[in-house]
């Protein structure tokens, strides 16, 4: 089966096509621009399919990163996946974005327990902790890095969130992924599907409630 994966929950707009028969990545493309997910995603998807010489009607399933990640960009991927899946009549699987980055870190040679952290803006990080057996042991959550220092500070950490706060994440190995790569996301998703483990529904992991305040009491126009 041909699995198309993409993710817009990190500054990377990334897409990849994987053949689940042999696990081969047929094509992948990445563009890093945190402010243009909406403009870039479909051209990147198109480039991947063209490079692989695969028509969209040949796709068997989609895997999409469900975050956590900055909401506006995140929704670009999820809205695109939902509509593509609907129009093509194929299933859409959700994958935690941090699991994709963790998979890429393992592929790059990281072993043992570690943390993945991405930039949640507002001086916070999205993070998850992975155990030596490659499973997600804790998270995803969103926190101020300072609050994590004691618990996670000593563990190796990967991702842009770790690079952003070196005073907290003191052990950032070289050569590790900073943002999401859809090739790793696709490989992770294919592995889970092959093992019969269910993936996530394709709905966003926001982790925060919308910023909105119920207005205080009526403010008068006349001077008090």
């Amino acid at each position, binding site marked *: 089966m041909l699995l198309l994966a993409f993710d817009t929950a990190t500054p990377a707009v990334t897409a990849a096509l994987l053949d689940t028969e042999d696990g081969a990545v047929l094509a992948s493309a990445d563009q890093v621009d945190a402010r243009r997910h*909406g*403009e*870039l*995603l*479909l*051209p*990147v*998807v*198109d*480039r991947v399919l063209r490079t692989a010489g695969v028509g*969209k009607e040949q796709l068997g399933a989609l895997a999409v990163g469900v975050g956590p990640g900055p*909401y*506006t960009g995140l*929704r*670009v991927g*999820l*809205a*695109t*996946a*939902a*509509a*593509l899946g*609907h*129009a*093509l009549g194929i299933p859409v699987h959700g994958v935690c974005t941090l699991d994709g980055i963790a998979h890429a870190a393992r592929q790059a040679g990281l072993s043992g327990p570690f943390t993945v952290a991405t930039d949640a803006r507002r001086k916070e990080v999205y993070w998850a902790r992975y155990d030596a057996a490659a499973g997600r042991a804790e998270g995803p959550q969103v926190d101020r890095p300072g609050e994590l220092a004691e618990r996670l500070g000593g563990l190796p950490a990967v991702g842009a969130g770790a690079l952003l706060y070196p005073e907290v994440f003191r052990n950032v190995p070289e050569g590790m992924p900073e943002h999401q790569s859809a090739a790793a996301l696709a490989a992770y998703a294919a592995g889970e599907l092959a093992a019969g483990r269910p993936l996530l529904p394709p*709905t*966003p992991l*926001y982790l925060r409630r*919308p*910023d*909105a*305040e*119920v*207005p205080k009491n*009526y403010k*008068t*126009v*006349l001077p008090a």
Partner: protein
Amino acid sequence: MADEPLVLGIETSCDETGVGIVRGTTLLADAVATSVEEHGRFGGVVPEIASRAHLEAMVPTVQRALDQAGIKASDLDGIAVTAGPGLAGALLVGVSAAKAYAYALDKPLYGVNHLASHICVDQLEHGRLPEPTMALLVSGGHSSLLLTSDITSDVRSLGATVDDAAGEAFDKVARVLGLGFPGGPVIDRYAAEGDPAAIAFPRGLSGPRDPAYDFSFSGLKTAVARWIEARRRAGEEVPVRDVAASFQEAVTDVLTRKAVRACLDHGVDHLMIGGGVAANSRLRAMAQERCERAGIELRVPRMKLCTDNGAMVAALGSEMVWRDRAPSAFDLSADSSLPVTETHVPAAGPVLPLSHDELHRMSE
């Protein structure tokens, strides 16, 4: 009729997820999901809540529209979507979904202007727009007088609000009166039982040296609040119905007076009113009366087509196909401040190849 363009339109510029399907000027489906109740306690639309709701509602609403129309997605001649103006994050959900549908179905994509759609929707009710047409667009986000000679390519702004939109004034006055959100329908209801001449509220920008076609509702809103507060401080009961009627009279008086004047000044004998505030019963009645007196034909679509919906986007999209306008590229942006003069957002070059990289590679 069967050869007229069959277009699906997606609208997510504010708190309504609208999906409509239109064949030429015939409405086939108008599915709307709204998050208005989730915004009520905040006293206005919260962008992040609206964006989240759009994502959840998108596919189910598209399916509902296809079912209503009794067509298959593969039958469509194009996908249209509101590219702006509106809430940036909300627009982006619709634009992303529309691109994916167009791409998956191999249909041309048309990013269109929200305000032009509000005008074009009248074609579903009253047939093709006369050219030129004067349009008064009044909603929670917009108050504009627009003159169009071709809804797909030529919309000119004659005037607009310099502060609050008309619908915003309704919301704010309803809040001062403790009537909840949104304010339009509830003020209309109370006003029906009140005296519109009870209180002489100011008519903004209506002096001889004021801009003829611009509006201002911020001063009116403050005047109403002051009047109410003075009553409350004096320990008197606030005559809610009279306040509602007198406020509504002040808004509709200015709107219709300027719209009729714009028609007369420009020799246009058709006035179209659209946007959520066009659902106001007093605005409709007053416009009817004044247009008749001035010899202007008034066109106001039914209420459901005045508020935000996908049918209006489909109507304009269908017109784009009909008039052979250039489709949008797949790198179409959601533009929160898309100028009204940009009726649609055509691709700068050929729609395919898609990416800059590819263009570079080809030129090498």
